[in-house]
């Protein structure tokens, strides 16, 4: 049985579509099987409820928080949550003091720290590094033995000089941040008594002052010089695995930072200076919220402004830090004041009504398609069903992998997509009908109608997809969820019209029912104004003598080319004026 090439192509397209659908279902099944996945999409805050977290600012006595700081914090927290997925959280201020974060589901510790930690990043040169002192230090610290040789004879005068303001300013003005003259006797004193448990992460020393702190795990304590480069100069940050020069991954996770112009220059200057120093002073400490994440040795000058931070990261923590750095530090630190479950604001009746409304809408669309396109309307219905199945599984997959959650607005958006998806079929069918009107046989009308229709469909879908992509990348909050839905339905629309509607029509065009233009097929050339020529071929009538002839030949509505029609109009003085007046 020799199949013509369009038939073969049609079957191939349908096979591909089958593969895609089976693949989606299998992926989803794998998700359910391995845990985490589900056969239904997760619902958003408005439909399912979630957790309400109230964040209170950590304030010193007498300190107040301005509304500007709060708004900035809200915006940063929103970006941090958004970057973890498309979950449509709700964040607002409360009482001009607190921030209320409502997120769907129950947050784990990682999510909480992603939200509340201030993420203030500083690069400071190491001045002194030593093993931390034991916890047995006396209250006044005077009995402590200095652990570092750098202190030499300064210990004795330092104890009484501590009260003297002069002791807090260096005797010799330091020339740069690495200069050991930064260490005043008072600072040395403080360092000697310092314990890693003392770190106050919410009260980091000012940027132009030295800082005493520890490694995050408490293994080393440091005196660090003033801030050389800070997180404000970061233009982008990503996470990834460390690669060796040969390109192999070491399995260690790192945060890759890209500095802006100022940061790049400052970073190059510091690394130039540090690489010339030795011992602890060669180290460059990366300080996050007051603790040292790591203090690598400066082996080379970094001039491209793209340092890499390693430490004890895994994939999740490196991603969280990268996101935090990208969106900047919170202007103030917050603590979680309360964390409660919260019920849905809309409840199940709204969702049910929405779905019922969608179903009614769908039935109306089906009825209209059948009335308008007869049995061809069934192709529309089948295409919509295929589109619906694909969209459903894509959304379920996204809700598993990307944390997408379906809100009521999202449901409404999907229902609306029915119309936009159906438009592709309408554009296509109308083009095929136009070709039939021009006297083509059905098989070739389908092919040439398709060639014209797909151009239009691609062009118009590109505009929609562009809207979705731009909104998804640039917008925040609820708008991103909408953009995702729009982009998804647009892609599904293209997929279905190319891999389902067109192949099905190609195959149907070869059936007797459609090929012979049965009255109920919706593709009856006679009804469309073409003239039967025999052997399932239709041709437009060559000449029409006068307008009167045309208007009287109601049974066949003899078809003319446009030019001929115009000519005939010019010739005729017929009673039915064709142009002016019809719309008035």
């Amino acid at each position, binding site marked *: 049985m020799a199949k013509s090439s369009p038939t073969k192509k049609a079957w191939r397209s349908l096979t591909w579509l089958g593969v895609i659908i089976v693949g989606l279902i299998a992926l989803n099944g794998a998700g359910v099987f391995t845990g985490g996945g589900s056969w239904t999409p997760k619902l958003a805050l408005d439909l399912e*409820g979630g957790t309400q977290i109230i964040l209170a600012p950590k304030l010193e006595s007498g300190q107040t928080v301005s509304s500007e700081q709060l*708004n900035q914090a809200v915006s940063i927290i*929103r970006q941090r949550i958004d970057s973890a997925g498309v979950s449509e959280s709700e964040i*607002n201020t*409360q*009482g*001009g003091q607190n921030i*209320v974060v409502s997120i769907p589901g129950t947050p784990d510790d990682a999510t909480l720290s992603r939200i509340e930690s201030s993420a203030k990043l500083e690069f400071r040169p190491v001045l002194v590094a030593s093993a931390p002192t034991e916890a047995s230090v006396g209250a006044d610290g005077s009995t402590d033995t200095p652990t570092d040789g750098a202190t030499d004879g300064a210990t004795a005068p330092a104890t009484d000089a501590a009260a003297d303001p002069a002791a807090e300013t260096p005797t010799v003005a330091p020339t740069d941040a690495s200069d050991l003259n930064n260490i005043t006797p008072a600072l040395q004193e403080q360092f000697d008594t310092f314990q890693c448990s003392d770190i106050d992460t919410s009260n980091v020393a000012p940027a132009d002052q030295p800082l005493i702190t520890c490694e995050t795990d408490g293994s080393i304590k440091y005196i660090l010089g003033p801030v050389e480069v800070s997180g404000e100069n970061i233009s982008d940050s990503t996470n990834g695995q460390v690669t060796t020069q040969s390109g192999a991954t070491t399995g260690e996770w790192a945060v890759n930072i890209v500095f802006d112009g100022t940061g790049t220059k400052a970073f190059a200057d510091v690394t130039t200076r540090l690489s010339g120093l030795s011992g602890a002073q060669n180290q460059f400490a990366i300080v996050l919220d007051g603790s040292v994440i790591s203090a690598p040795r400066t082996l080379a000058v970094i001039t491209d402004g793209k340092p890499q931070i390693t430490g004890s990261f895994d994939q999740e923590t490196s991603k969280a830090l990268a996101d935090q750095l990208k969106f900047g530090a919170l202007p103030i630190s917050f603590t979680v004041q309360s964390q409660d*479950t*919260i*019920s849905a*604001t809309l409840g199940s009746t*709204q969702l049910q*009504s*929405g779905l019922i*409304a969608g179903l*009614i*809408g769908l039935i*109306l669309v089906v009825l*209209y398609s059948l009335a308008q396109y*007869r049995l061809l309307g069934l192709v529309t219905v089948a295409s919509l069903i295929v589109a619906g199945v694909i969209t459903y599984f894509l959304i379920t997959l996204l809700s598993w992998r990307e944390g997408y959650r379906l809100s009521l*607005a999202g449901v*409404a*958006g999907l*229902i*609306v997509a029915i*119309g936009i998806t159906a*438009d592709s079929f309408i554009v296509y069918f*109308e083009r095929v009908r136009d070709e039939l*009107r021009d006297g083509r046989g059905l098989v070739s009308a389908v092919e040439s109608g398709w060639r014209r229709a797909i151009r*239009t469909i691609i*062009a118009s879908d*590109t*505009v929609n997809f*562009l*809207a*979705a992509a*731009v*909104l998804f*990348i*640039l*917008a*925040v909050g*609820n*708008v991103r969820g*909408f953009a995702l839905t729009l982009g998804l339905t647009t892609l599904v629309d293209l997929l279905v019209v190319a891999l389902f509607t067109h192949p099905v029509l190609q195959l149907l065009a070869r059936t007797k029912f459609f090929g012979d233009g049965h009255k109920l097929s919706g593709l009856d050339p006679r009804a*469309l*104004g073409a003239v039967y020529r025999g052997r399932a071929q239709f041709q437009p009538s060559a000449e029409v003598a006068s307008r009167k002839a045309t208007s009287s030949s109601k049974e066949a*509505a003899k078809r*003319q080319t*446009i030019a001929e*029609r*115009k000519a005939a*109009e*010019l010739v005729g003085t017929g009673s039915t*004026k*064709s*142009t*002016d007046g*019809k719309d008035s």
Partner: protein
Amino acid sequence: MASFNQFGNDLHTGKLSYNIVGRRKIWYSVAAVMILIAILGPVLRGGFTFGIEFTGGSEFVLSEISTEDQGAAATAVTGVVPEAVPKVSVVGSDSIRVQTDQLSDTESREVRAALASAYSVDAAKVTSSFIGPSWGQDITGSAIRALLTFLVLAGAVMALYFRTWKMAAAAMVALLHDLVITAGFYGITGFEITPAAVIGFLTILGYSLYDTVVVFDKIRENTAEDGSESRRTFADSVNLAVNQTLVRSINTSIVAVLPVASILVIGAFVLGAGTLQDISLALLIGMLVGTYSTIFIAAPLYAQLRENEPEIRKRDKKALALKAKAAGTAPAAGADATHVDVPA
């Protein structure tokens, strides 16, 4: 549906032709009036009404309650402030959170009392505070940036695809027309602008351009096919394309509007105000206006923009001459040319 088929056939061949492009002055005037109403209406009414997601509002928290009936809270609030649309949710195991539009101090006190009696708790167990907007300046700002970027990119894509910036310009004007009128509708009727409504606007943005591209693609096809022997002027070709896609425009609008209308009907009459009504209203108006503006604003405007190009003028002259010649060979000619000659 044979008559509708016949309608489509006649539009395709040109037997039936609505002179849309030639009467652009009428459509422009209609658009100008509609836009004027859409701008003046809200101003006279006192501006737009924004939802609490934009403005912030009052929040009441009832603790140590025994029942979790959310309806009672809503009833208590609307008993004091009838126009309020309270958002009620259960927090933890024994608290209820009620958010409403910003209330005055007196109203706040009354609502507190009403809530306390509705749940039979002590008034001291009801705390009230002010909440900031959850749709803050940062979301609006980023959405507007995204929007402008999209418009510039969409304009560029259309200009490249159609090989003329004039189509992109005409499409953008029609889009602006749609957005102003839809927004005006909200302003005039006083419907609350909520995030759902904004998302409705964004959908319209895409839909309006989408619809215009579909029709413009037919215009591109028709005007590109016109050889030197064509008796159609440029405006004729544009008009023919609009007529030929009229059946598609009608079918698409009906198919797109049916689900939206059913959401609106169910949302508004069964559930009352809420997300479904907010989003579907914006969509219904926007889709109808979007389809209308493609046909009556974008297409005539495009024809007008192109008409004065020297090359098009030359061809139009030739087409008219050919038409006149054809008319000259026939005794009863002339009348048909009228719609072409409608002055711009």
